[in-house]
């Protein structure tokens, strides 16, 4: 009996097993009878004509396949009907069967394959038609379509439109198929059900664009009424009743079903078991049964409480809090070997940092009835202290400090009383150092360690000596680069690895990154690089390096298609595009484009993608799909404000004012579709009323570096105790960014900017303090126009504006107010501030001492008829009229005031400087000098309060001076003149009083203090306690008696952010 089969038996047999041929599925519709006869007759006649006249003798007409009569015929032309003209030429370049060559079956096949591989076509058919002695070859194609905009219409609040779009999983630019659309619909329906919308109707409407081969999809969602909770059942060994589960889960029949509610229910049930220390509890929803007739969803919870898990430590006292912190079982609410071992390692670390360097920890598990005991058995060993870690022998590589930063073992210091050490840590450290040396060319490095456990004669006091024998450093031999056929060597980035230089694996990695980065950014997304290193055969201790590049196909940009703009003008988007037609395709450019468009702030979503990413067509279309953000933003709020140095009428130091505050802002983005912003901001309270309208043109003349802002501003503020300041201002700011505009991803704006400004404002001081010199009220209370050009220069080289540790910050603000610009006072003003920051010591970032200093200098110089009047110099004449009504002065709200938490912390807010001799209230000055020195301590943790606290000590000095020349004298004076002679009667004393008012306040006030900081994401919360060493003494008329007063020594400030 023969039981062997020929070799092809199996394959043939397989086919019979699984192929079934059914009858035709799509029979054509029969034609209407009366036309069918005629059409049939015509077809028969037509066929007869062709066969009579055209068919060569003996030719066989095949269903498909190259007719022998065409084989070898010259191709007159190759056609691609239905393909856009701009694409046709380059597609014809891709195919191997060219016009002018002879028609070959294999070439036609290759051409179809090449066209199909471009991904642009769903179907291709090659046709040949005779044309004289030649033939015309036509590739008849049907186009593929790709995913364009995906939008949602009519979603509920949950799920949101974004969630629905994400659930659709239709990626911009990918091939669009009906299968994908059906899957998207199914996913959305599932999402709707997860959110309780079991009656949701989800449909899709697709709109295709033949020119761009894009399909936009709009999902229509009709959520329907949400399902409600039906029965709640429970299974599993929990012994909980259905009612108990309902109560624990807060899931009651009739409740609306939402994903959040279901998730919360599970959380609550799990939490219940967690509280019982049942970390192995399993709570899940075993079944959800929907009843369409009642729109109810039944839930069946599967609950297995599992055993009670008790974790303890044996052999060494570990507090329960420490166990909870170190054993991740508590945090993860799960028990497995990985978590237990992580806990073991954490405990070891805990013990070693407390001096138990030889500690051992084992895990013991004990199972009892419904209880699992996990016991960490600890052998703590003796208490050690690592006093010294000495590194020797490092000569030609890293210095000792750098090497130490790689070590895990640490000698004892202030915050680590015993240091940190174990044999395993030391071994790991040696391994790290050896690896570091070897990767940098020290192939023969040898590291030996000795541990002295009787260091300085003290038992258990350790010293670790790490002796490094570096050996000779390997250097780079020859460097070869191969495979760069399309990019010449001169265009490639310069290599870090150079012959003769020390060999370093880090340098090799850098070169890899730079070379591949270059290729990826220049249209070679499939580039790869192989680096091989071999010992040089020519020189000892040299390593030859070879870079072999596989460039892959170069892709370029065909068209850039922008979609989704409704109101935005085209140029706004176009000027942000970093991808241009015919440029090499660069992923970085796509990211930059996306980033720049997001930075405009007028789009809520920006997607960039390559159309048809999987196709081999080297010319790719780029899709930029944007979604415009809401153009109007309304912000409103209500709250309280409080501020010190409020005018009180009698208390010259001011009082703390409290007031309710209402805010209302409106922002209109993308005004006119030009990416310009119109803003209205207002807040109204008893302490301050402010309104602002501004119009911002962020990219003047299409430049990232120029910004123009028009502002109209009204302010009524009471931050100087003496008077109420009113200001109505209009200004034009032209801001120029110097250096980088910071619009590219990963770049920061250049450190410097300058704002050219023209201000025009009307200022008025009113509501003067009780007893204020009546001779001056008439003068100072007059409204005054101030206007003129100015500029502000800012140079910011701080590492972090919120918490600076190094760098500097410089500002210079100037103004020239002159009658030529419509001003009523002629004066110039300059205010400069320079702050520097410096790290002291070598702590880790965030744990360093920072020395910060800041100096502010302000000068105002009147010119033409404008004068500076010292306090009290304007008296009333005998008729009770002011003697200086005709004099023009710098308006009071324009004067310098200082003092407070952000300037001189020896004064209350704006309390420094000259004072009115009658009321004793500050009147400001025309010169200012403040110098701050501050030492900021590293952050630390406080008992009970936790981490994030920091301290500072500071010294502030300076003051506001009557006039600039007084400022120079005042800087050298630490004390005011005595006030006593002024209190005596007589002419001499009157002159003395006048002299005191003129220059008695021109001295330098010093304050020292301490500060407490608490770190928050918006900057540190700051409490500063300042003690003024020489507070200002001043005069005040009380009940017609002139008395001497002195500002308080002690001032407290609360604020957010560092003072400078």
């Amino acid at each position, binding site marked *: *009996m023969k*039981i*062997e*089969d020929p*070799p*092809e038996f*199996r*394959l043939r*047999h*397989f*086919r019979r*097993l*699984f*192929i*079934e*041929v*059914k*009858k*035709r*599925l*799509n029979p054509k519709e029969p034609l209407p009878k009366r036309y069918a006869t*005629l059409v049939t*007759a*015509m077809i028969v*006649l*037509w066929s007869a*004509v*062709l066969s009579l*006249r*055209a068919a060569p003798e003996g030719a066989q007409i095949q*269903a*498909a*396949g*190259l*007719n022998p009569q*065409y084989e070898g015929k010259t191709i007159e032309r190759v056609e691609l009907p239905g393909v856009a003209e701009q694409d046709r030429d380059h597609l014809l370049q891709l195919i191997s069967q060219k016009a002018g060559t002879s028609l070959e*079956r294999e070439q*036609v*096949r290759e051409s*179809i*394959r090449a066209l*199909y591989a471009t991904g642009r076509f*769903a*179907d*291709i*058919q*090659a*046709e*040949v*038609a*005779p044309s004289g002695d030649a033939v*015309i070859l*036509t590739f008849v194609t*049907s186009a593929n379509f790709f995913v364009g905009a995906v939008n949602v219409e009519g979603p509920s609040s949950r799920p949101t439109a974004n969630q629905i779009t994400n659930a659709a999983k239709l990626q911009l630019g990918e091939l669009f198929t009906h*299968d994908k659309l059906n899957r998207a619909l199914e996913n959305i329906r599932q999402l709707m059900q997860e959110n309780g919308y079991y009656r949701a109707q989800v449909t899709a409407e697709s709109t295709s664009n033949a020119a761009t081969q894009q399909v936009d999809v709009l999902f229509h969602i009709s959520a329907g009424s949400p399902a409600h909770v039906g029965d709640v059942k429970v299974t599993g060994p929990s012994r909980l009743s259905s009612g108990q589960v309902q109560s624990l889960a807060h899931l009651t029949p009739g409740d609306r079903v939402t994903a959040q509610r279901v998730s919360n229910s599970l959380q609550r049930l799990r939490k219940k078991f967690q509280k019982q220390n049942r970390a192995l509890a399993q709570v899940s929803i075993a079944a959800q049964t929907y009843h369409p007739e009642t729109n109810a969803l039944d839930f069946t919870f599967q609950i297995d409480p599992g055993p009670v898990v008790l974790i303890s430590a044996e052999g060494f006292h570990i507090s329960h809090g420490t166990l909870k912190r170190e054993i991740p079982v508590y945090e993860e609410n799960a028990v497995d070997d990985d978590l237990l071992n992580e806990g073991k390692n954490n405990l070891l670390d805990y013990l070693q940092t407390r001096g138990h360097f030889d500690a051992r920890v084992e895990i013991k598990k004990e199972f009892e009835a419904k209880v699992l005991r996990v016991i960490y058995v600890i052998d703590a060993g003796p208490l050690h202290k690592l006093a010294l870690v000495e590194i020797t022998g490092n000569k030609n590589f890293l210095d000792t400090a750098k090497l130490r930063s790689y070590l895990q073992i640490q000698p004892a210091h202030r915050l680590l009383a015993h240091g940190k050490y174990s044999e395993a840590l030391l071994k790991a450290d040696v391994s790290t150092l050896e690896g570091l040396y070897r990767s940098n060319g020290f192939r023969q490095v040898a590291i030996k360690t000795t541990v002295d456990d009787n260091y300085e004669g003290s038992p258990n006091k350790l010293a670790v000596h790490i002796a490094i024998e570096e050996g000779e450093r390997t250097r780079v031999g020859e460097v070869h680069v191969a495979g760069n056929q399309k990019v010449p060597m001169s265009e490639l980035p310069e290599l870090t690895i150079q012959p003769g230089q020390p060999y370093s694996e880090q340098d090799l990695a850098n070169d890899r990154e730079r070379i591949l980065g270059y290729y990826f950014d220049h249209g070679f997304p499939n580039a790869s690089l192989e680096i091989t290193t071999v010992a040089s055969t020519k020189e000892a201790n040299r390593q030859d390096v070879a870079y072999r590049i596989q460039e892959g196909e170069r892709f370029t940009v065909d068209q850039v298609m922008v979609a989704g703009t409704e109101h935005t003008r085209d140029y706004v988007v176009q000027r942000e595009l970093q991808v241009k037609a015919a440029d090499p395709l660069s992923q970085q450019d796509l990211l930059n484009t996306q980033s720049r468009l997001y930075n405009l702030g007028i789009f809520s979503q920006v997607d960039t993608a390559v159309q048809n990413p*999987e196709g081999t067509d080297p010319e790719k279309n780029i899709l930029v799909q944007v979604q415009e953000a809401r153009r109007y933003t309304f912000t409103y709020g209500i709250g309280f404000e409080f501020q010190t140095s409020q005018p009180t009428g009698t208390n010259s130091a001011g009082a703390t004012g409290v007031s309710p505050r209402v805010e209302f802002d409106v922002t209109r983005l993308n005004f006119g579709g030009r990416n310009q912003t119109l803003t209205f901001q207002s807040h109204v309270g008893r302490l301050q009323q402010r309104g602002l309208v501004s119009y911002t043109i962020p990219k003047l003349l299409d430049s990232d570096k120029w910004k123009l802002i028009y502002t109209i501003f009204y302010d009524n503020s009471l931050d100087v105790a003496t008077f109420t300041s009113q200001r109505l201002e209009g200004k034009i700011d032209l801001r120029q960014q110097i250096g980088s505009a910071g619009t590219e991803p990963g770049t920061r704006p250049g450190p410097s900017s300058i704002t050219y400004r023209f201000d025009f404002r009307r200022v008025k001081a009113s509501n003067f303090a009780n007893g204020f010199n009546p001779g001056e009220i008439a003068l100072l209370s007059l409204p005054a126009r101030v206007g003129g050009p100015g500029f502000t220069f800012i140079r910011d080289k701080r590492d972090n504006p919120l918490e600076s540790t190094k760098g500097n910050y410089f500002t210079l603000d100037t103004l020239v107010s002159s009658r030529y610009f419509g001003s009523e006072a002629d004066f110039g003003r300059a205010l400069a501030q320079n702050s520097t920051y410096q790290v002291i010591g070598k702590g880790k970032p965030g744990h360093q001492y920072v020395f910060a200093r800041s100096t502010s200098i302000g000068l105002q110089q009147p010119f033409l008829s404008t004068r500076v009047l010292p306090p009290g110099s304007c008296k009333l004449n005998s008729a009770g009229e002011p003697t200086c009504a005709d004099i023009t002065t710098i308006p009071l709200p324009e004067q310098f005031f200082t003092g407070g938490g952000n300037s001189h912390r020896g004064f209350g807010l704006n309390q420094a400087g000259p004072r009115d001799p009658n009321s004793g209230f500050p009147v400001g000055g025309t010169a200012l000098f403040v110098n701050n020195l501050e030492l900021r301590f590293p952050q630390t943790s406080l008992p009970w309060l936790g981490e994030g606290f920091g301290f500072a000590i500071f010294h502030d000095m300076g003051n506001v001076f009557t006039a600039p020349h007084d400022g120079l004298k005042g800087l050298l004076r630490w004390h005011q003149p005595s006030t006593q002679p002024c209190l005596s009667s007589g002419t001499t004393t009157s002159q003395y009083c006048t002299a005191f008012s003129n220059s008695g306040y021109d001295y330098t006030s010093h304050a020292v203090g301490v500060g407490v900081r608490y770190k928050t994401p918006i900057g540190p919360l700051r409490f500063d306690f300042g003690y003024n060493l020489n507070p200002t003494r001043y005069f005040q008329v009380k009940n017609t008696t002139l008395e001497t007063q002195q500002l308080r020594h002690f001032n407290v400030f609360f604020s957010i952010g560092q003072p400078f």
Partner: protein
Amino acid sequence: MHRVHANRAIAVSAAVLLLFWGMLSLPVVRAADVIDRIVATVNGHIILQSDLDEALCYQALLSGRSVAQFTDDDRRAALDRLIDQELLGEQMKSAYFQHASEAEAASQVAEARKLYPEAATPEGWQTLLARFGLTEKALIAHVEQQIDLMRLVDARLRPAVQIDSKSIEAYYREKFVPQLKESGAGEVSLADVSGKIRELLTEEKVNELMVSWLQSLRSESKVNLPGASELSIEGVQTR
């Protein structure tokens, strides 16, 4: 009324004749001939009409049949085979097995050559190949590919097949012996044929596994038949 109908018939006939005459008198404009097209796509790879024609030619040559003898069912089956081969070809990239050598393929081709007495001489063989539109090199490459596919299946599935002695005994008792008696041959002991029965049962099991593997591959793959209506192969399906 009848006259109206008769006049209409005459007019239609005249128009048809006029059209016919016009066609004869017009210069001949040949419609384009389809010379190749996509008949199937498998995970983004295409199978062309010419691939199918070529596969039929191989099949005809190796099985000693004429291409003209192939029915529509044969063509559909050939396309289905090409789809399977494409799916298995994808698996081949990540599989390790002994690939067929050219000598092995040439040996198989030599076996096929024996089916044709006129191919005994080199000239006759070349004439035969030309008749099928094939070359010897392409034929050997095709056979190599077929052997590789079979080896892939063996390497993947055969290790999973275990035939126990009870199955062999059952086959011997229930199938082999009755057929032996029916054919009137003498008695053959179980020990003499157990090896061959094991091989047969193994083949059957491999076949079963192969079916389910291909089903699984198809369910995970994207197979489209854009040219199916032209090929009259609507309804090709897997089960």
